[in-house]
């Protein structure tokens, strides 16, 4: 069975929520989610928080994630801090943050040392070249998955904004801050204008 198959979505959602986790439990849970997360931790975070530990309902999780997604920075790191603070205040934030980042940073640093020492070996170079081709393919598939709702909704404005940002950053290689300082106010302005027109 593929490990990504949807886990028992048919079962009636049980409203029972477990007791608030302690600091050690927060650290351990985020470390475990992070270490199982190849190619992104979100799936494992949802599984751990909602299904396994029942610390949040699915709706609460979606709301929390939406907040962390529209704020800048690594989404899942933001989520760990918001989640930890909700249960245990600032110490909870630090525990979840440290659990999410600590163990994988150690692993990736070991890989960096190995790469520094053996990166010139021909066989390793070939393997890494193959892995990076595949990794790029994975990223492109995520982009297409995210695009589908825009296309299904026939969101013309969204598609134009998306294409403009893609061109500015990917093709013209303009600096990110400059592009966003123009694109964010413009996109928010257009969104508000469109909503007014729809409700008028």
């Amino acid at each position, binding site marked *: 069975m*593929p490990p990504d*198959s949807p886990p028992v979505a048919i079962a009636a959602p049980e409203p029972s929520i477990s007791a608030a986790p302690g600091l050690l439990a927060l650290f351990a849970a985020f470390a475990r989610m992070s270490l*199982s*997360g*190849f190619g*992104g*931790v979100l799936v494992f975070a949802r599984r751990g928080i909602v299904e396994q530990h029942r610390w949040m309902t699915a709706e609460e999780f979606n709301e929390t994630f939406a*907040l962390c*997604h*529209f*704020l*800048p*920075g*690594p*989404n899942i*790191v*933001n989520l760990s801090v*918001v989640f930890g*603070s909700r249960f245990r205040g600032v110490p909870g*934030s630090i525990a979840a943050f440290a659990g999410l980042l600590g163990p*994988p*940073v150690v*692993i*990736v*640093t070991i*890989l*960096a040392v190995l790469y*520094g020492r053996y990166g010139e070996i021909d066989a390793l*170079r*070939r*393997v*890494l*070249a*193959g892995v*990076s*081709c*595949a*990794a*790029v*393919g994975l*990223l*492109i*598939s*995520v*982009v*297409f998955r*995210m695009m589908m709702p825009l296309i299904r909704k026939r969101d013309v404005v969204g598609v134009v*904004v*998306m294409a403009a*940002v893609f061109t500015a*950053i*990917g*093709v013209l*290689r303009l600096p*990110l801050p400059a592009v*966003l300082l123009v694109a964010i106010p413009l*996109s*928010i302005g257009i969104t*508000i204008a469109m*909503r007014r027109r729809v409700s008028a």
Partner: protein
Amino acid sequence: MNLNQSPIWTLISTFGLMSLFAVGGANAAIPEMHRIAVDVQHWLTDKQFADVYAISQLSPGPNVLIVTLIGYAVAGVAGGLAATLAMCVPTALLAYCVSRLLTRSSHSRWPAIIQAALVPLSIGLMGASGLVLALTSDRTWTAGLVTAAVAVLAFATRLNPLWLLLAGGLLGFAGFIG
């Protein structure tokens, strides 16, 4: 040596600033990382950048770990830690403060509007990441073919991404990528 010239300080200021503009997460900031690390600061070559991205995807944990690897290449273990914290702490503090503010007024319509406005933007950024990385990684037509095949497989199936990465590594080892 002047503090402003120390590489650790450059890493902290670079990634601290970048994190505040990383709308859509770390993967959306890849073109900016490439622009600064390869084109502006010359910390890495194009090939090394592609390798670093591959290693970050091969290791478990959040996508932001590519920053640890860039920092390590610049200034060793301390550089890796400095870059990681610079990329994560400012926005984590921001997220903490905003979530505290929003728990009271969660029925405001502003979050919904901002979200609707930012989603297409972050998809555009991630698409740009895909293009920049494809241009650095896919040097041969067979490499482009592997990328395209993985993109289609990952889009159409629910295969664990790790298997696709390992398959790519095997094809590379076999000399298919060229």
